[in-house]
């Protein structure tokens, strides 16, 4: 009789343990997602702000984003060369560098790429922050690079036709073409004093980013096929610079575990006294 009882008890208690583990494990499960954000990995030492081929880039996780021809506004384009961009980012708490990589069969002087950010808290439309009918939008900050210029232009826009270079140029860019692939690195300080015009990147916070690429090839008549609004674009995606490591979670866990232990102790004492 007794061994049978013991056996049953073991099974039951084992069941409780398994069940608890399943509940707890299930509650903390997180699901893998497709890339929806660029993660700027925190690194020590110099961020490769002017080296698209630096070894340090291998430590940054790549995120791939699909591109579309710009059809939202005139002048449109029905097909663009670049179909995807692969984006990596690194920061050291002071400077941030974003590496944009994409296939382009030919290297042309007019090849160009750009990053776009929302500025401040207001939601801006991804097409140059153009005005929305029912939402008061904000400005966008555009970091533009063109092969033949060999440098970045730091620009602002709040709607079509308002795009212009800023008085303060804070962005650096460098492109390297090799084997049918452009690698372009954009770099800037994470934050600066120009809060009205420039995106301010606070580690740990998600901000919005979009991409544009122009293939600078020419058609039979010698005219540029992709220029101005005729380009490959993306919608808004997220960008986040890694926050410095935060160990407070371990502290809270330790406090909670200690409380649970104390609760057990008190409970068992009470039960023993009561019997």
């Amino acid at each position, binding site marked *: 009789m007794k061994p049978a009882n013991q056996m049953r008890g073991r099974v039951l208690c084992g069941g409780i343990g398994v069940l*608890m583990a399943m509940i707890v494990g*299930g509650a903390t499960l997180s699901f893998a997602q497709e890339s929806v954000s660029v993660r700027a990995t925190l690194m020590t030492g110099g961020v490769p702000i002017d080296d698209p081929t630096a070894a340090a880039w291998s430590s940054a996780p790549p995120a791939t*984003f699909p591109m*579309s021809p710009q059809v939202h506004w005139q002048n449109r384009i029905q097909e663009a060369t670049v179909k995807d961009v692969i984006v990596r980012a690194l920061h050291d708490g002071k400077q941030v560098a974003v590496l944009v990589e994409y296939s382009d069969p030919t290297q042309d002087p007019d090849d160009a790429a750009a990053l776009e950010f929302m500025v401040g808290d207001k939601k801006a439309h991804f097409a140059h922050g153009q005005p929305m*009918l029912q939402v008061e939008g904000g400005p966008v900050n555009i970091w533009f690079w063109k092969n033949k210029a060999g440098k970045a232009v730091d620009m602002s826009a709040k709607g079509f036709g308002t795009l212009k270079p800023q008085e303060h140029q804070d962005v650096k860019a460098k492109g390297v073409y090799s084997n049918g692939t452009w690698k372009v690195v954009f770099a800037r300080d994470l934050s600066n004093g120009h809060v009205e015009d420039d995106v301010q990147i606070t580690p740990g916070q*998600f901000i919005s980013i979009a991409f544009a690429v122009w293939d600078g090839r020419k058609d039979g008549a010698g005219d540029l096929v992709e220029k101005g609004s005729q380009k490959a674009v993306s*919608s*808004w995606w997220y960008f986040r610079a890694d926050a410095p490591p935060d160990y407070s979670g371990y502290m809270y866990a330790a406090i909670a575990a200690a409380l649970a232990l104390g609760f057990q102790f008190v409970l068992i004492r009470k039960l023993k006294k009561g019997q």
Partner: protein
Amino acid sequence: MGALGKPIILMVAMYVFLKFVLPNIPGSAPLPSSLIFLYLLLTASGIVIFETLSGESKDAFWGPIQRFLTGENIRGLQALRYGVLILFPILVGWQTYGSTAVSDLPPTESRTIHPAPPGEYTGLSNPVPKTPENIMQGKGFYAAYCSPCHGGNFDGKGPAARGFIPAPANFADPTTIAMLQESYLFWRIKKGGVGLPIEGAPWKSAMPRWEVELPDEWIWKIIMGEYDGAHQSPRTWE
């Protein structure tokens, strides 16, 4: 021990049902773990209430638990008791860590897919007669202006669609134009993405504001062409 056996079997069965059986029932979907937790909590409360209805059943239910916790006369289960006493604080700590850890997921944005149109765009009827010629013309305009994104097959899979989030609407899907009135489409085509109210997240939509490029009559014809091409009918007031 018998009084404790049934509740535990019931709890395990409930968990297995919610986690593994229910999602496989046609028309169902996996439950979020928080909901499963809530159901198990309700089940446990029900069991406790049931088991403590009478003094006898109460003793039969709590007795074994008390004995197990205090470790009196449980012999071989002593090791398991220590295991549970050690495991419980660890699980609490683990759960706390999981819930305080900073999420790697971007903020979730809830977007209303079909927000309410402004008053002036409700209940308009298509002023263009529904003739084969007009439908044909509408399909021609659709091919020229809409199909790059919404697709030649009206399925939202045009060659220019891939980079846009939200994806261009699939008109063949019965949850898009089939549940909307023609006047709603007129509003959406005319004002485009930027004409959406805040809950429609207008800053993400690539839908052009066609009112600046196309006359109203063309838009009404395009609407006709879309319904015909996608084999759908507009929703009516009846």
